[in-house]
């Protein structure tokens, strides 16, 4: 894994109150070395995104996101949700 890479994929967050409970997530390392969790749900219609070498891609309607979950192209128009 390089300086910017995916540490682990598609783990499930523990159930807790709030709208991020039980959302399957990806743990990723950012370019400044922080670790963040990204929702695996595409912000377009909620399909589960897949990771590839360039970041994440939605298999339903083709939205693309970079390795930190920032929207690149496709109908989603928003970044992947960061889970706190």
């Amino acid at each position: 894994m390089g300086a910017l890479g995916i540490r682990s994929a598609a783990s499930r967050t523990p159930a807790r109150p709030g709208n991020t409970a039980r959302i399957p997530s990806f743990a990723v390392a950012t370019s400044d070395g922080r670790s963040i969790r990204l929702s695996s749900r595409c912000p377009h219609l909620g399909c589960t995104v897949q990771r590839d070498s360039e970041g994440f891609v939605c298999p339903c309607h083709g939205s693309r996101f970079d390795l930190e979950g920032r929207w690149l192209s496709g109908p989603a128009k928003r970044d992947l949700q960061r889970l706190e």
Partner: protein
Amino acid sequence: MTDRASSPPIAPRAPTTSVGILIPGLPPIGSLAFAAALICAVSGLVILPGYEPQSPLASILQIETARPWGWLFRGIHRWSAELFLVVLVVHTIDFLARRADRDLRIGRWLLLVATLPVTAYLMLGGLALTGDAEGFGVASVMQGLAALIPGAGQYASKLLVGSFDDGTVHALYLHHVLTASVVLGVLIAVHLKRRIPDPIAIGVALGVSGIATLVVRPALGPIQAQGRLHGPWFMVGLRWLLERWPAWLAGIAIPLGLTAVLFALPRLPERLARIARVLLGLALLGYLVLLGLGAVQ
């Protein structure tokens, strides 16, 4: 007497609310729709005991491999549903082309039109119940679109699709085997002219869905998507739109708007009704083009 005998016979006026398109050698289109629905229901009941909403994909594999003729019944269930959808759309076009909606009471017409969205929901729900990547993709899109309904999105999403984060499909299962199926059964029953199915129509529907099963077994994919998800063939046009237009427009406003036009059709003044028919015809043609575009994508 001589005049009457020599005058040409007067052709009886074709009843506008009768059996619909008559293709030589084939049963009336309405009878075929009823037969396809019946076969779909019966084959669904046969595979029902083996299906488990808490482990959808595994239980379908079990039905396909371990239950006697399970693969055949599942295939017939799937293809008779597809046949029902196609025949229902043709039946509706035929009905509109003959302007038969003008002869019906408004309540009856509303029930007839309601058959279309209920059928679409049942079919999408059925695909989601496979529990593979395609199925969960369909469920996600259904959930995402339902959530966009103004004012009731979250409720509609929870009520119609429910949660499937843990890989179970309880809400969809309940609606597929009970709620929506009963609603569709009632909607079909209220407009049947004869409750006993046409044996020829049953034979044709069973033959078509049986042969389709032998030729193309309904696919089951991996549980995780491996590349692009294509969705059901009748939704590739909507997928094409959803990739380009705002989801609320392509997935909610346009379908609801067209359904509302269809609902209102018999009550519109003649001039407006003519425009509405042209609009519906264009929408149908446009969707056929989108089906082609989505298929080659």
